């Protein structure tokens, strides 16, 4: 279970921040229970600040929670059903109140359409049950007709200190030793998004006792906030003087370049703006290359002008919108691909060890192995030769490899299923096999391949006594 799930607050008291909002929510709940139906609650705020969490906590105050997708027909039926009942009885029995949740109604984060505005308005109109809606962007056009019908509650970004405190609690619960300045750093970087802070903490900490020394390597903690200021200035403004000022940071300029690059497409919307901005960054990077090669760091000043004012002026006009900037996504991608990369590397190492090739060359052979591994016999041979584990085999092939029938069970040194080509045998084999294709079903039984084919035809519960003897090959 992910930490964001594991440590999701279950009561109002456990929720970080937004105390005032919670008070309003409690009042709203009380009114419902007292038999006074209320307009729907609309929780609006940036991601990772607790809207869905609050919705579910509210749900616990009622007899049931229904999370609905407004455009889904089944959901509409469900609503109609619950709308139909209870109109007369809820004043007597609280138990009959079911909370309906409509999450992310403004669809800002590319969620599938959660129902046209019409459907949502219909639900608001028809439902007799308490209704909670959540949204990210208070100025979204989709909300314009909905807002007036609701009680709007703003959920604010969580304070850095609250985030740090929450992270500290989690560390203690997980038995992880984490220095407070690392936690504070994580908290700062999340920019009020508690969910992402917990995710980042989990990624760093999974499997490790102590956490995040690498975070501190970026220098004094002030430097990070300065990078964000630099990026913000470059992307938000077109004022060359202001941008140059903001670019004066302690950080390694190549990191600054990465940060700017990361966020250009988040800020700039027009294709030619993104293209121009990236062209500037690319030219800046060329100057970095020249500086390294010639060991002449005066080239850096050109890089700086290009990635600062150059990028700033790549946009036609400034954008007035809220953008959440992000550090490099490499971190996230590394996290997501960690297991696969570990497998890839361990296979590459085995290949390097046995085949006199470098890991890099080994990896370049993987696409071939994917094809070769479809052939049972070859897959088996190579798996044995490289001593691959079942997990590693999965890199190349989904199905388990069945051991081909063997003449002498238990002998690892023989190539199963195929007679060893000794020098005296070579001519015979060549003669016998000339013109015969490798794996046709009509093939002679010399190579036991027809047995192999037969095995495949009678799928699962094949009882092959020979296979049972050779327990080495019972792949779990």
């Amino acid at each position, binding site marked *: 279970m992910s930490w964001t799930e594991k440590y999701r607050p279950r009561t109002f008291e456990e929720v970080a921040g937004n105390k005032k909002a919670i008070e309003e929510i409690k009042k709203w709940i009380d009114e419902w229970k007292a038999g006074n139906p209320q307009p729907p609650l609309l929780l609006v705020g940036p991601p990772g600040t607790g809207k869905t969490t609050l919705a579910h906590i509210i749900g616990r105050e009622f007899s049931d929670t229904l999370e609905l997708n407004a455009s889904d027909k089944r959901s509409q039926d469900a609503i109609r059903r619950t709308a139909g009942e209870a109109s007369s009885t809820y004043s007597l029995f609280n138990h009959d109140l079911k909370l309906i949740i409509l999450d992310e109604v403004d669809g800002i984060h590319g969620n599938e359409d959660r129902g046209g505005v019409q459907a949502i308005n219909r639900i608001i109109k028809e439902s007799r049950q308490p209704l909670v809606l959540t949204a990210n962007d208070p100025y979204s056009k989709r909300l314009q007709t909905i807002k007036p019908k609701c009680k709007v509650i703003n959920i604010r970004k969580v304070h850095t200190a609250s985030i740090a405190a929450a992270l500290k609690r989690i560390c203690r619960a997980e038995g992880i030793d984490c220095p407070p300045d690392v936690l504070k750093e994580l908290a700062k970087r999340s920019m009020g998004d508690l969910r992402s802070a917990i995710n980042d903490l989990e990624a760093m900490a999974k499997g490790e006792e102590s956490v995040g020394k690498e975070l501190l390597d970026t220098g004094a903690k002030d430097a990070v906030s300065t990078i964000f200021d630099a990026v913000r200035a470059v992307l938000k403004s077109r004022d060359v003087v202001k941008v140059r000022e903001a670019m004066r940071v302690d950080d390694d300029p190549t990191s600054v370049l990465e940060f700017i690059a990361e966020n250009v497409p988040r800020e700039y919307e027009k*294709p030619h703006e993104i293209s121009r901005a990236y062209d500037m960054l*690319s030219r800046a990077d060329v100057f970095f290359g020249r500086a390294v090669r010639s060991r002449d760091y005066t080239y850096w000043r050109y890089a700086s002008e290009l990635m600062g004012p150059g990028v700033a002026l790549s946009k036609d006009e400034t954008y007035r919108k809220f953008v959440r900037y992000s550090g490099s996504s490499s971190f996230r991608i590394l996290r997501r691909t960690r297991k696969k990369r570990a497998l890839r590397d361990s296979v590459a190492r085995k290949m*390097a060890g046995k085949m006199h*090739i470098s890991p890099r060359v080994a990896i370049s*052979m993987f696409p071939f192995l994917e*094809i070769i591994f*479809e052939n049972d016999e070859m897959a088996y041979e190579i798996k044995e030769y490289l001593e691959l584990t079942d997990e590693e085999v999965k890199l190349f092939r989904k199905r388990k490899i069945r051991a081909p029938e063997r003449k002498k069970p238990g002998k690892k040194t023989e*190539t199963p299923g195929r007679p060893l080509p000794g020098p005296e045998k070579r001519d015979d084999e*060549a003669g016998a096999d000339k013109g*015969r294709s490798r794996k046709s079903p009509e093939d002679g039984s010399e190579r036991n391949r027809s047995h192999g084919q037969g095995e495949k035809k009678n799928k699962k519960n094949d009882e092959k006594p020979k296979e049972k003897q050779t327990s080495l090959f019972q792949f779990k």
Partner: protein
Amino acid sequence: MSGPWVEKYRPQKLDDIVGQEHVIPRLKRYVEEKSMPNLMFTGPAGVGKTTTALALAKEILGDYWRQNFLELNASDARGIDTVRTSIKNFCRLKPVGAPFRIIFLDEVDNMTKDAQHALRREMEMYTKTSSFILSCNYSSKIIDPIQSRCAIFRFLPLKGHQIIKRLEYIAREEGLEYEPQALDTIVYFAEGDLRKSINLLQSAASLGEKITEESIYEVVSRARPKDVRKMINTVLNGKFMDARDILREIMVLQGISGEDMVTQIYQELSRMAMEGALEGEKYIKLIEAIGEYDFRIREGANPRIQLEALLAKFLEYS
């Protein structure tokens, strides 16, 4: 255990090595004299550098060659220090059962200049008891002090008929049924790389039927890094951030270098144009962009940024 054919059919003797006729006789003289200087083998991938080094070591060192031969990847991610320690530990003792020791270092051109300077010092330190064989793709990336300490051997891409002869031998040994055109097709795609040729052959053989031209085309199309076309189409559809994420995943998961990635993009665009999936004018503009950014990758510091910029350029044609 036979395992992959590239290993199963690796020549064990200098005489059996495919091609490189300008190189082998000189090496055989070292075998006769039972001594050799430091060597540098330079040339493209898959033409026999490692195979030759192994064969040479076996013949010149004799029966106990295994104990007196150390094989290392010079660009080991763990760094020059690990490499140095391995060399030091290996060279501490005098060679036993062999006239001297050989240290084979692969991918030396991937080492930083500083690491290469450190390597040169190692080479000097053990010159009395050991010889080095350094292998690389681009000798221009090797610092001069190392080049001047080595006898340089340039390995050339193999010729079509040399590759075909070897493939025919393997096909005979494995009892494969094939069309002659299939082998020509392999030669075409392999571009002088015998390792790639053998992998193509084995992949085609694994498909189970007679090996035809079609089988080779099928293998080639399946043996590409995945998702390059998806990435290109995504950006040509205007979705820059999605395309950028795909690029990053490809590079991280498949461990592809910037230059290789450029090659992949170029080849994929080429294919798309041939299939009619991309019209002429657009194709030319994109190729122009690739060329420019290929150059910038070599000049610049961060290949990934350059590739992202290339994608951003593609965005203009969406």
